[in-house]
Protein backbone atom coordinates (compact mmCIF):
# COMPACT_ATOMS: atom_id res chain seq x y z
CA UNK A 1 0.00 0.00 0.00
CA UNK A 2 2.80 2.40 0.83
CA UNK A 3 4.62 1.06 -2.19
CA UNK A 4 2.64 2.70 -4.93
CA UNK A 5 3.73 6.21 -4.13
CA UNK A 6 4.68 7.83 -7.43
CA UNK A 7 6.09 11.01 -5.96
CA UNK A 8 9.49 11.84 -7.37
CA UNK A 9 9.50 8.75 -9.53
CA UNK A 10 11.69 8.84 -12.62
CA UNK A 11 10.95 7.18 -15.96
CA UNK A 12 14.21 6.57 -17.79
CA UNK A 13 13.52 7.32 -21.47
CA UNK A 14 15.04 9.13 -24.37
CA UNK A 15 12.58 11.91 -25.16
CA UNK A 16 13.16 15.55 -26.06
CA UNK A 17 12.23 16.61 -22.53
CA UNK A 18 14.48 13.96 -20.97
CA UNK A 19 17.41 15.32 -22.90
CA UNK A 20 16.96 18.92 -21.79
CA UNK A 21 19.61 20.24 -19.44
CA UNK A 22 18.25 19.59 -15.90
CA UNK A 23 19.36 23.03 -14.68
CA UNK A 24 17.32 24.53 -17.42
CA UNK A 25 14.40 22.23 -16.73
CA UNK A 26 14.26 23.38 -13.12
CA UNK A 27 14.23 27.03 -14.18
CA UNK A 28 11.66 26.29 -16.87
CA UNK A 29 9.42 24.52 -14.36
CA UNK A 30 9.56 27.47 -11.99
CA UNK A 31 8.94 29.79 -14.93
CA UNK A 32 5.86 27.82 -16.02
CA UNK A 33 4.48 27.72 -12.49
CA UNK A 34 4.78 31.50 -12.32
CA UNK A 35 3.17 31.87 -15.75
CA UNK A 36 0.28 29.64 -14.60
CA UNK A 37 -0.18 31.90 -11.59
CA UNK A 38 -0.21 35.11 -13.58
CA UNK A 39 -2.77 33.81 -16.09
CA UNK A 40 -5.93 35.68 -15.20
CA UNK A 41 -8.34 34.52 -17.84
CA UNK A 42 -9.28 31.37 -19.69
CA UNK A 43 -7.44 32.38 -22.85
CA UNK A 44 -4.08 32.71 -21.19
CA UNK A 45 -4.65 29.70 -18.91
CA UNK A 46 -5.74 27.70 -21.95
CA UNK A 47 -2.46 28.58 -23.60
CA UNK A 48 -0.52 27.37 -20.55
CA UNK A 49 -2.62 24.20 -20.58
CA UNK A 50 -1.79 23.64 -24.25
CA UNK A 51 1.87 24.09 -23.43
CA UNK A 52 1.61 21.61 -20.53
CA UNK A 53 -0.08 19.07 -22.82
CA UNK A 54 2.73 19.57 -25.34
CA UNK A 55 5.30 18.88 -22.60
CA UNK A 56 3.33 15.81 -21.53
CA UNK A 57 3.36 14.46 -25.08
CA UNK A 58 7.01 15.32 -25.70
CA UNK A 59 8.05 13.69 -22.43
CA UNK A 60 7.01 10.26 -23.71
CA UNK A 61 5.75 9.30 -20.24
CA UNK A 62 2.31 7.64 -20.51
CA UNK A 63 -0.52 10.04 -19.68
CA UNK A 64 -1.88 7.63 -17.08
CA UNK A 65 1.10 8.41 -14.84
CA UNK A 66 0.26 12.10 -14.99
CA UNK A 67 -3.32 11.25 -14.03
CA UNK A 68 -1.96 9.14 -11.19
CA UNK A 69 0.04 12.11 -9.91
CA UNK A 70 -3.16 14.20 -9.78
CA UNK A 71 -5.09 11.58 -7.80
CA UNK A 72 -3.63 12.26 -4.32
CA UNK A 73 -4.55 15.96 -4.49
CA UNK A 74 -7.94 15.47 -6.13
CA UNK A 75 -9.71 16.04 -2.80
CA UNK A 76 -7.82 19.29 -2.33
CA UNK A 77 -8.83 20.41 -5.84
CA UNK A 78 -12.48 19.52 -5.14
CA UNK A 79 -12.59 21.36 -1.83
CA UNK A 80 -11.06 24.47 -3.36
CA UNK A 81 -13.52 24.32 -6.24
CA UNK A 82 -16.55 23.85 -3.98
CA UNK A 83 -15.50 26.74 -1.74
CA UNK A 84 -15.22 28.94 -4.83
CA UNK A 85 -18.66 27.91 -6.03
CA UNK A 86 -20.27 28.94 -2.72
CA UNK A 87 -18.31 32.06 -1.94
CA UNK A 88 -17.97 33.90 -5.24
CA UNK A 89 -20.85 36.14 -6.01
CA UNK A 90 -21.60 37.70 -9.39
CA UNK A 91 -24.41 38.84 -11.61
CA UNK A 92 -25.85 35.65 -13.11
CA UNK A 93 -27.68 33.88 -10.32
CA UNK A 94 -28.20 30.21 -11.20
CA UNK A 95 -29.53 28.51 -8.08
CA UNK A 96 -30.90 29.94 -4.88
CA UNK A 97 -32.20 28.08 -1.85
CA UNK A 98 -32.14 29.01 1.82
CA UNK A 99 -28.93 31.06 2.27
CA UNK A 100 -27.01 29.43 -0.56
CA UNK A 101 -26.62 31.33 -3.77
CA UNK A 102 -24.69 29.89 -6.71
CA UNK A 103 -23.62 32.25 -9.44
CA UNK A 104 -22.32 31.41 -12.90
CA UNK A 105 -19.18 33.41 -12.04
CA UNK A 106 -18.57 31.14 -9.06
CA UNK A 107 -18.68 28.04 -11.23
CA UNK A 108 -16.34 29.60 -13.78
CA UNK A 109 -13.97 30.67 -11.02
CA UNK A 110 -14.03 27.15 -9.51
CA UNK A 111 -13.23 25.56 -12.85
CA UNK A 112 -10.45 28.09 -13.35
CA UNK A 113 -8.82 27.36 -9.98
CA UNK A 114 -9.13 23.58 -10.47
CA UNK A 115 -7.49 23.73 -13.90
CA UNK A 116 -4.70 25.88 -12.50
CA UNK A 117 -3.88 23.44 -9.68
CA UNK A 118 -3.98 20.45 -12.03
CA UNK A 119 -1.60 22.28 -14.37
CA UNK A 120 0.83 22.95 -11.53
CA UNK A 121 0.88 19.24 -10.67
CA UNK A 122 1.37 18.20 -14.29
CA UNK A 123 4.20 20.67 -14.78
CA UNK A 124 6.08 19.62 -11.67
CA UNK A 125 5.48 15.90 -12.36
CA UNK A 126 6.93 16.38 -15.84
CA UNK A 127 10.12 17.58 -14.15
CA UNK A 128 10.53 14.61 -11.80
CA UNK A 129 9.30 12.05 -14.33
CA UNK A 130 11.92 13.07 -16.89
CA UNK A 131 14.90 13.91 -14.68
CA UNK A 132 16.80 11.33 -12.65
CA UNK A 133 17.16 12.34 -9.01
CA UNK A 134 20.91 12.43 -9.48
CA UNK A 135 20.74 14.91 -12.35
CA UNK A 136 18.18 16.87 -10.39
CA UNK A 137 20.52 17.23 -7.42
CA UNK A 138 23.47 17.83 -9.74
CA UNK A 139 21.53 20.65 -11.32
CA UNK A 140 20.58 22.11 -7.94
CA UNK A 141 24.23 21.92 -6.85
CA UNK A 142 25.18 23.69 -10.04
CA UNK A 143 22.50 26.36 -9.73
CA UNK A 144 23.52 26.99 -6.12
CA UNK A 145 27.17 27.41 -7.06
CA UNK A 146 27.12 31.19 -6.57
CA UNK A 147 26.19 30.57 -2.91
CA UNK A 148 29.10 28.15 -2.43
CA UNK A 149 31.42 31.10 -2.95
CA UNK A 150 29.96 32.50 0.26
CA UNK A 151 31.17 29.41 2.12
CA UNK A 152 27.98 27.33 1.98
CA UNK A 153 28.81 23.64 1.36
CA UNK A 154 26.58 23.06 -1.66
CA UNK A 155 28.25 19.76 -2.59
CA UNK A 156 27.37 18.13 0.74
CA UNK A 157 23.86 19.50 0.48
CA UNK A 158 23.42 17.94 -2.98
CA UNK A 159 24.95 14.62 -1.82
CA UNK A 160 22.56 14.54 1.13
CA UNK A 161 19.63 15.05 -1.22
CA UNK A 162 20.82 12.29 -3.56
CA UNK A 163 21.15 9.85 -0.68
CA UNK A 164 17.80 10.84 0.78
CA UNK A 165 16.11 10.25 -2.59
CA UNK A 166 17.98 6.97 -3.01
CA UNK A 167 16.80 5.70 0.39
CA UNK A 168 13.14 6.76 0.24
CA UNK A 169 12.02 3.54 -1.53
CA UNK A 170 14.21 1.39 0.72
CA UNK A 171 12.77 2.94 3.88
CA UNK A 172 9.21 2.75 2.57
CA UNK A 173 9.70 -0.95 1.92
CA UNK A 174 11.16 -1.42 5.37
CA UNK A 175 8.28 0.47 7.04
CA UNK A 176 5.89 -1.83 5.22
CA UNK A 177 7.75 -4.87 6.48
CA UNK A 178 7.88 -3.66 10.08
CA UNK A 179 4.17 -2.79 9.97
CA UNK A 180 3.31 -6.26 8.75
CA UNK A 181 5.55 -7.78 11.41
CA UNK A 182 3.86 -5.74 14.15
CA UNK A 183 0.40 -6.55 12.80
CA UNK A 184 1.31 -10.23 12.81
CA UNK A 185 2.10 -9.78 16.50
CA UNK A 186 -1.39 -8.40 17.01
CA UNK A 187 -0.65 -4.68 16.89
CA UNK A 188 -3.73 -2.60 16.16
CA UNK A 189 -2.96 0.55 14.20
CA UNK A 190 -6.33 1.59 12.84
CA UNK A 191 -8.63 1.91 15.84
CA UNK A 192 -8.51 3.58 19.23
CA UNK A 193 -7.97 7.08 20.55
CA UNK A 194 -5.29 9.43 19.31
CA UNK A 195 -3.08 8.48 22.24
CA UNK A 196 -3.47 4.79 21.42
CA UNK A 197 -2.63 5.44 17.79
CA UNK A 198 0.51 7.32 18.72
CA UNK A 199 1.47 4.43 20.97
CA UNK A 200 0.91 2.03 18.08
CA UNK A 201 3.27 4.00 15.86
CA UNK A 202 6.20 3.77 18.29
CA UNK A 203 6.89 0.07 17.66
CA UNK A 204 7.23 0.97 13.97
CA UNK A 205 9.26 4.13 14.43
CA UNK A 206 11.86 2.74 16.80
CA UNK A 207 12.99 -0.26 14.71
CA UNK A 208 12.99 1.99 11.66
CA UNK A 209 15.21 4.51 13.41
CA UNK A 210 17.60 1.86 14.71
CA UNK A 211 17.95 0.28 11.29
CA UNK A 212 18.41 3.67 9.63
CA UNK A 213 21.38 4.39 11.86
CA UNK A 214 22.87 1.01 10.99
CA UNK A 215 22.30 1.69 7.30
CA UNK A 216 23.89 5.11 7.59
CA UNK A 217 27.00 3.64 9.21
CA UNK A 218 27.31 0.94 6.56
CA UNK A 219 26.72 3.39 3.72
CA UNK A 220 29.41 5.69 5.09
CA UNK A 221 31.85 2.76 5.13
CA UNK A 222 30.91 1.77 1.59
CA UNK A 223 31.33 5.35 0.37
CA UNK A 224 34.75 5.61 2.00
CA UNK A 225 35.77 2.32 0.38
CA UNK A 226 34.95 3.91 -2.93
CA UNK A 227 37.32 6.79 -2.24
CA UNK A 228 34.65 9.38 -1.44
CA UNK A 229 36.35 12.43 0.04
CA UNK A 230 33.92 15.27 -0.54
CA UNK A 231 33.39 17.30 -3.66
CA UNK A 232 37.02 18.27 -4.12
CA UNK A 233 38.64 16.85 -7.25
CA UNK A 234 35.51 14.90 -8.08
CA UNK A 235 34.60 14.52 -11.75
CA UNK A 236 31.26 13.38 -13.15
CA UNK A 237 30.01 10.69 -15.52
CA UNK A 238 27.35 13.03 -16.78
CA UNK A 239 28.48 16.57 -17.38
CA UNK A 240 25.70 19.09 -17.70
CA UNK A 241 25.73 21.05 -20.91
CA UNK A 242 23.07 22.99 -22.74
CA UNK A 243 22.28 22.16 -26.38
CA UNK A 244 20.10 23.40 -29.26
CA UNK A 245 17.13 21.72 -27.50
CA UNK A 246 17.50 24.06 -24.57
CA UNK A 247 17.55 26.99 -26.96
CA UNK A 248 14.31 25.80 -28.59
CA UNK A 249 12.67 25.33 -25.19
CA UNK A 250 13.94 28.71 -24.02
CA UNK A 251 12.57 30.54 -27.06
CA UNK A 252 9.19 28.81 -26.90
CA UNK A 253 8.81 29.58 -23.21
CA UNK A 254 9.58 33.24 -23.86
CA UNK A 255 6.94 33.30 -26.59
CA UNK A 256 4.52 31.65 -24.17
CA UNK A 257 5.19 34.20 -21.47
CA UNK A 258 4.70 37.15 -23.85
CA UNK A 259 1.47 35.64 -25.20
CA UNK A 260 0.10 35.09 -21.69
CA UNK A 261 0.84 38.70 -20.78
CA UNK A 262 -0.71 39.87 -24.03
CA UNK A 263 -3.88 37.80 -23.48
CA UNK A 264 -4.13 39.06 -19.91
CA UNK A 265 -4.07 42.63 -21.16
CA UNK A 266 -6.39 42.11 -24.13
CA UNK A 267 -9.24 40.33 -22.36
Amino acid at each position, binding site marked *: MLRDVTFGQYFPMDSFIHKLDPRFKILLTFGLIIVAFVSFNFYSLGLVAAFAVLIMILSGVPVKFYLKSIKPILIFVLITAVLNIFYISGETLLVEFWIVKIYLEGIIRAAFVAVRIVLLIIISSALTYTTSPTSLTDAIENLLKPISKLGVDTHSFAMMM*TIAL*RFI*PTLIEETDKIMSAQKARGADMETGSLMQKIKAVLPILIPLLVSSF*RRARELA*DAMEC*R*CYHGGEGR*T*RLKVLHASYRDAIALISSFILLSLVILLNILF
Partner: protein
Amino acid sequence: MEPLIRLNNVSFSYPDENDTKIQLLENFNLEIEKGSFVSVLGHNGSGKSTIAKLFNGLNLPDSGSVTVNGMDTADESNMLSIRETVGLVFQNPDNQIVATIVEEDVAFGPENLGLPQKEIRKRVDEALKSVDMYDYRMHEPHRLSGGQKQRVAIAGIIAMQPECIVLDEPTAMLDPQGRAEVMDIILKLNRQLNKTVVLITHYMDEAAMADRVVVMDSGKIIADDTAKNVFSQVELLKSAGLDVPQPTELSYRLKKAGIGIDCDVLSVDECVDAITRKLLEE
Protein backbone atom coordinates in the same frame (compact mmCIF):
# COMPACT_ATOMS: atom_id res chain seq x y z
CA MET B 1 57.71 -11.63 -3.63
CA GLU B 2 56.14 -8.90 -1.52
CA PRO B 3 52.57 -9.92 -0.64
CA LEU B 4 49.76 -7.59 -1.70
CA ILE B 5 48.43 -7.23 1.84
CA ARG B 6 50.44 -7.86 4.99
CA LEU B 7 49.09 -7.73 8.53
CA ASN B 8 52.14 -7.65 10.75
CA ASN B 9 51.73 -8.25 14.52
CA VAL B 10 48.43 -6.44 14.48
CA SER B 11 46.54 -5.78 17.70
CA PHE B 12 43.04 -4.42 17.54
CA SER B 13 40.39 -3.68 20.15
CA TYR B 14 36.89 -2.28 20.34
CA PRO B 15 35.64 -0.21 23.26
CA ASP B 16 32.60 -1.87 24.89
CA GLU B 17 29.66 -0.10 26.59
CA ASN B 18 31.70 0.79 29.68
CA ASP B 19 34.54 2.07 27.48
CA THR B 20 36.86 -0.71 28.58
CA LYS B 21 38.72 -2.17 25.66
CA ILE B 22 37.89 -5.59 24.34
CA GLN B 23 40.96 -7.06 22.72
CA LEU B 24 39.85 -8.76 19.51
CA LEU B 25 43.15 -9.33 17.69
CA GLU B 26 46.53 -9.82 19.32
CA ASN B 27 49.79 -10.21 17.40
CA PHE B 28 47.80 -11.17 14.37
CA ASN B 29 49.73 -12.03 11.21
CA LEU B 30 48.33 -12.66 7.74
CA GLU B 31 49.60 -12.23 4.21
CA ILE B 32 47.55 -12.17 1.04
CA GLU B 33 49.55 -13.02 -2.07
CA LYS B 34 48.98 -11.24 -5.38
CA GLY B 35 46.57 -13.07 -7.66
CA SER B 36 45.44 -15.57 -5.03
CA PHE B 37 41.88 -16.53 -4.11
CA VAL B 38 41.62 -16.77 -0.35
CA SER B 39 38.51 -17.50 1.66
CA VAL B 40 38.10 -16.67 5.31
CA LEU B 41 35.81 -18.80 7.46
CA GLY B 42 34.73 -18.35 11.04
CA HIS B 43 31.56 -18.25 13.12
CA ASN B 44 29.80 -15.03 14.13
CA GLY B 45 32.00 -12.58 15.99
CA SER B 46 35.27 -14.36 15.21
CA GLY B 47 36.69 -11.15 13.74
CA LYS B 48 36.28 -11.67 9.99
CA SER B 49 34.75 -8.27 9.21
CA THR B 50 37.28 -6.63 11.50
CA ILE B 51 40.22 -7.92 9.46
CA ALA B 52 38.46 -7.04 6.19
CA LYS B 53 38.23 -3.44 7.37
CA LEU B 54 41.89 -3.53 8.41
CA PHE B 55 42.84 -4.43 4.83
CA ASN B 56 41.97 -1.00 3.43
CA GLY B 57 42.36 1.26 6.43
CA LEU B 58 38.71 1.46 7.43
CA ASN B 59 40.00 0.05 10.73
CA LEU B 60 43.46 1.05 11.93
CA PRO B 61 45.53 -1.26 14.18
CA ASP B 62 46.28 -0.27 17.80
CA SER B 63 49.78 -1.64 17.30
CA GLY B 64 51.59 -3.49 14.56
CA SER B 65 51.13 -2.52 10.93
CA VAL B 66 49.01 -3.21 7.87
CA THR B 67 50.62 -2.64 4.48
CA VAL B 68 49.07 -2.75 1.01
CA ASN B 69 51.70 -2.99 -1.74
CA GLY B 70 54.13 -1.72 0.87
CA MET B 71 51.98 1.33 1.74
CA ASP B 72 51.14 1.67 5.43
CA THR B 73 47.40 2.09 6.05
CA ALA B 74 48.12 4.25 9.10
CA ASP B 75 49.61 6.93 6.84
CA GLU B 76 46.74 9.24 5.90
CA SER B 77 48.43 10.29 2.64
CA ASN B 78 48.25 6.69 1.33
CA MET B 79 44.53 6.39 1.98
CA LEU B 80 43.20 6.99 -1.53
CA SER B 81 45.79 4.79 -3.25
CA ILE B 82 45.12 2.00 -0.76
CA ARG B 83 41.36 2.15 -1.30
CA GLU B 84 41.96 2.22 -5.03
CA THR B 85 44.04 -0.97 -4.66
CA VAL B 86 41.81 -2.90 -2.26
CA GLY B 87 38.05 -2.67 -2.83
CA LEU B 88 35.54 -3.86 -0.26
CA VAL B 89 32.09 -5.32 -0.97
CA PHE B 90 29.73 -5.68 1.98
CA GLN B 91 26.89 -7.98 2.91
CA ASN B 92 23.88 -5.75 2.36
CA PRO B 93 23.73 -4.40 -1.21
CA ASP B 94 21.00 -1.90 -0.21
CA ASN B 95 23.45 -0.08 2.04
CA GLN B 96 26.25 0.19 -0.51
CA ILE B 97 24.40 1.67 -3.44
CA VAL B 98 24.61 5.45 -3.44
CA ALA B 99 22.88 6.58 -6.62
CA THR B 100 19.38 6.11 -7.99
CA ILE B 101 20.40 4.76 -11.40
CA VAL B 102 22.59 1.69 -11.83
CA GLU B 103 25.21 3.27 -14.10
CA GLU B 104 25.41 6.39 -11.97
CA ASP B 105 26.13 4.23 -8.96
CA VAL B 106 28.88 2.29 -10.72
CA ALA B 107 30.38 5.65 -11.72
CA PHE B 108 30.58 6.80 -8.09
CA GLY B 109 34.07 5.36 -7.41
CA PRO B 110 35.70 6.54 -10.65
CA GLU B 111 34.11 9.98 -10.11
CA ASN B 112 35.74 10.19 -6.68
CA LEU B 113 39.07 9.28 -8.28
CA GLY B 114 38.68 12.38 -10.46
CA LEU B 115 38.99 10.49 -13.74
CA PRO B 116 38.12 12.19 -17.04
CA GLN B 117 34.54 11.72 -18.21
CA LYS B 118 35.46 9.45 -21.14
CA GLU B 119 37.45 7.13 -18.89
CA ILE B 120 34.56 6.96 -16.38
CA ARG B 121 32.15 6.02 -19.19
CA LYS B 122 34.51 3.29 -20.42
CA ARG B 123 35.05 1.81 -16.96
CA VAL B 124 31.36 1.88 -16.09
CA ASP B 125 30.43 0.03 -19.29
CA GLU B 126 33.20 -2.54 -18.86
CA ALA B 127 32.38 -3.13 -15.20
CA LEU B 128 28.67 -3.58 -15.91
CA LYS B 129 29.43 -6.00 -18.75
CA SER B 130 31.74 -8.06 -16.56
CA VAL B 131 28.95 -8.65 -14.03
CA ASP B 132 26.32 -9.18 -16.77
CA MET B 133 24.34 -6.11 -15.72
CA TYR B 134 24.96 -3.92 -18.76
CA ASP B 135 21.36 -4.26 -19.95
CA TYR B 136 20.19 -2.90 -16.61
CA ARG B 137 22.40 0.21 -16.65
CA MET B 138 19.45 2.61 -16.73
CA HIS B 139 17.39 0.77 -14.09
CA GLU B 140 16.66 1.90 -10.58
CA PRO B 141 18.60 -0.25 -8.10
CA HIS B 142 15.68 -0.70 -5.70
CA ARG B 143 13.73 -2.53 -8.39
CA LEU B 144 16.44 -5.18 -8.90
CA SER B 145 16.66 -8.59 -7.21
CA GLY B 146 19.12 -9.10 -4.36
CA GLY B 147 21.61 -10.93 -6.57
CA GLN B 148 21.42 -8.22 -9.21
CA LYS B 149 21.91 -5.48 -6.61
CA GLN B 150 24.96 -7.25 -5.23
CA ARG B 151 26.37 -7.57 -8.76
CA VAL B 152 25.90 -3.82 -9.21
CA ALA B 153 27.76 -3.26 -5.94
CA ILE B 154 30.58 -5.49 -7.22
CA ALA B 155 30.63 -3.57 -10.52
CA GLY B 156 30.99 -0.36 -8.49
CA ILE B 157 34.21 -1.79 -7.04
CA ILE B 158 35.45 -3.28 -10.36
CA ALA B 159 35.09 0.15 -11.98
CA MET B 160 37.82 1.46 -9.66
CA GLN B 161 40.07 -1.24 -11.14
CA PRO B 162 41.47 -2.45 -7.82
CA GLU B 163 44.10 -5.21 -7.68
CA CYS B 164 42.26 -6.91 -4.87
CA ILE B 165 38.57 -7.30 -4.08
CA VAL B 166 37.53 -8.26 -0.56
CA LEU B 167 33.97 -9.50 -0.20
CA ASP B 168 32.45 -9.68 3.30
CA GLU B 169 29.69 -12.30 3.23
CA PRO B 170 28.40 -11.04 -0.12
CA THR B 171 25.84 -13.82 -0.43
CA ALA B 172 24.52 -13.87 3.15
CA MET B 173 21.32 -11.98 2.31
CA LEU B 174 20.61 -13.65 -1.03
CA ASP B 175 18.36 -16.50 -2.14
CA PRO B 176 19.99 -19.59 -3.69
CA GLN B 177 19.75 -18.19 -7.22
CA GLY B 178 21.26 -14.85 -6.19
CA ARG B 179 24.03 -16.71 -4.39
CA ALA B 180 24.86 -18.72 -7.49
CA GLU B 181 24.93 -15.58 -9.68
CA VAL B 182 27.25 -13.77 -7.31
CA MET B 183 29.55 -16.78 -6.82
CA ASP B 184 29.93 -17.06 -10.61
CA ILE B 185 31.07 -13.46 -10.74
CA ILE B 186 33.48 -13.92 -7.83
CA LEU B 187 35.13 -16.90 -9.55
CA LYS B 188 35.36 -14.90 -12.75
CA LEU B 189 37.02 -12.00 -10.90
CA ASN B 190 39.89 -14.27 -9.92
CA ARG B 191 40.11 -16.66 -12.87
CA GLN B 192 39.47 -14.28 -15.79
CA LEU B 193 40.10 -10.76 -14.54
CA ASN B 194 43.14 -11.87 -12.48
CA LYS B 195 42.04 -10.03 -9.37
CA THR B 196 43.25 -11.05 -5.95
CA VAL B 197 40.07 -12.15 -4.17
CA VAL B 198 39.41 -12.48 -0.45
CA LEU B 199 36.03 -14.05 0.19
CA ILE B 200 34.67 -13.92 3.72
CA THR B 201 31.84 -16.37 4.14
CA HIS B 202 30.28 -18.88 6.40
CA TYR B 203 29.16 -21.15 3.58
CA MET B 204 31.59 -24.06 3.34
CA ASP B 205 30.83 -24.80 -0.29
CA GLU B 206 31.72 -21.22 -1.22
CA ALA B 207 34.91 -21.31 0.80
CA ALA B 208 35.88 -24.58 -0.87
CA MET B 209 36.19 -22.82 -4.25
CA ALA B 210 39.19 -20.82 -3.03
CA ASP B 211 42.83 -21.87 -3.42
CA ARG B 212 43.47 -21.17 0.23
CA VAL B 213 41.15 -21.32 3.23
CA VAL B 214 41.82 -19.40 6.44
CA VAL B 215 39.75 -20.40 9.47
CA MET B 216 39.32 -17.93 12.32
CA ASP B 217 38.12 -18.48 15.85
CA SER B 218 37.89 -15.65 18.42
CA GLY B 219 40.41 -13.45 16.68
CA LYS B 220 42.93 -16.20 15.95
CA ILE B 221 43.80 -18.15 12.83
CA ILE B 222 43.33 -21.81 13.64
CA ALA B 223 43.85 -23.22 10.15
CA ASP B 224 45.38 -21.85 6.96
CA ASP B 225 45.84 -24.28 4.09
CA THR B 226 44.33 -25.58 0.86
CA ALA B 227 40.59 -26.25 0.94
CA LYS B 228 41.12 -30.04 0.94
CA ASN B 229 43.59 -29.98 3.81
CA VAL B 230 41.43 -27.64 5.88
CA PHE B 231 38.18 -29.52 5.39
CA SER B 232 39.75 -32.85 6.29
CA GLN B 233 40.37 -31.48 9.80
CA VAL B 234 36.80 -32.15 10.79
CA GLU B 235 37.39 -32.06 14.55
CA LEU B 236 39.12 -28.70 14.35
CA LEU B 237 36.35 -27.14 12.27
CA LYS B 238 33.73 -28.41 14.67
CA SER B 239 35.64 -27.00 17.62
CA ALA B 240 35.51 -23.60 15.88
CA GLY B 241 31.73 -23.87 15.71
CA LEU B 242 31.61 -24.53 11.98
CA ASP B 243 29.75 -27.19 10.03
CA VAL B 244 31.78 -29.15 7.53
CA PRO B 245 30.40 -29.79 4.00
CA GLN B 246 28.01 -32.76 3.95
CA PRO B 247 30.19 -35.07 1.79
CA THR B 248 33.15 -34.45 4.11
CA GLU B 249 30.95 -35.09 7.13
CA LEU B 250 29.78 -38.38 5.59
CA SER B 251 33.26 -39.65 4.82
CA TYR B 252 34.42 -38.54 8.27
CA ARG B 253 31.66 -40.60 9.92
CA LEU B 254 32.35 -43.58 7.70
CA LYS B 255 36.00 -43.41 8.68
CA LYS B 256 35.11 -43.21 12.35
CA ALA B 257 32.96 -46.31 11.91
CA GLY B 258 35.98 -48.08 10.47
CA ILE B 259 35.13 -47.76 6.79
CA GLY B 260 37.99 -45.76 5.37
CA ILE B 261 37.35 -43.81 2.17
CA ASP B 262 39.41 -40.84 1.01
CA CYS B 263 38.65 -38.27 3.64
CA ASP B 264 39.31 -35.12 1.63
CA VAL B 265 36.23 -35.34 -0.58
CA LEU B 266 34.59 -31.95 -1.02
CA SER B 267 32.00 -32.23 -3.74
CA VAL B 268 29.03 -34.58 -3.83
CA ASP B 269 30.33 -36.14 -7.08
CA GLU B 270 33.76 -36.82 -5.60
CA CYS B 271 32.11 -38.38 -2.59
CA VAL B 272 29.91 -40.64 -4.73
CA ASP B 273 32.99 -41.73 -6.72
CA ALA B 274 34.97 -42.52 -3.57
CA ILE B 275 32.14 -44.56 -2.10
CA THR B 276 31.54 -46.45 -5.38
CA ARG B 277 35.24 -47.26 -5.58
CA LYS B 278 35.18 -48.52 -2.02
CA LEU B 279 32.13 -50.68 -2.69
CA LEU B 280 33.69 -52.17 -5.84
CA GLU B 281 36.86 -53.03 -3.90
CA GLU B 282 34.87 -55.15 -1.46
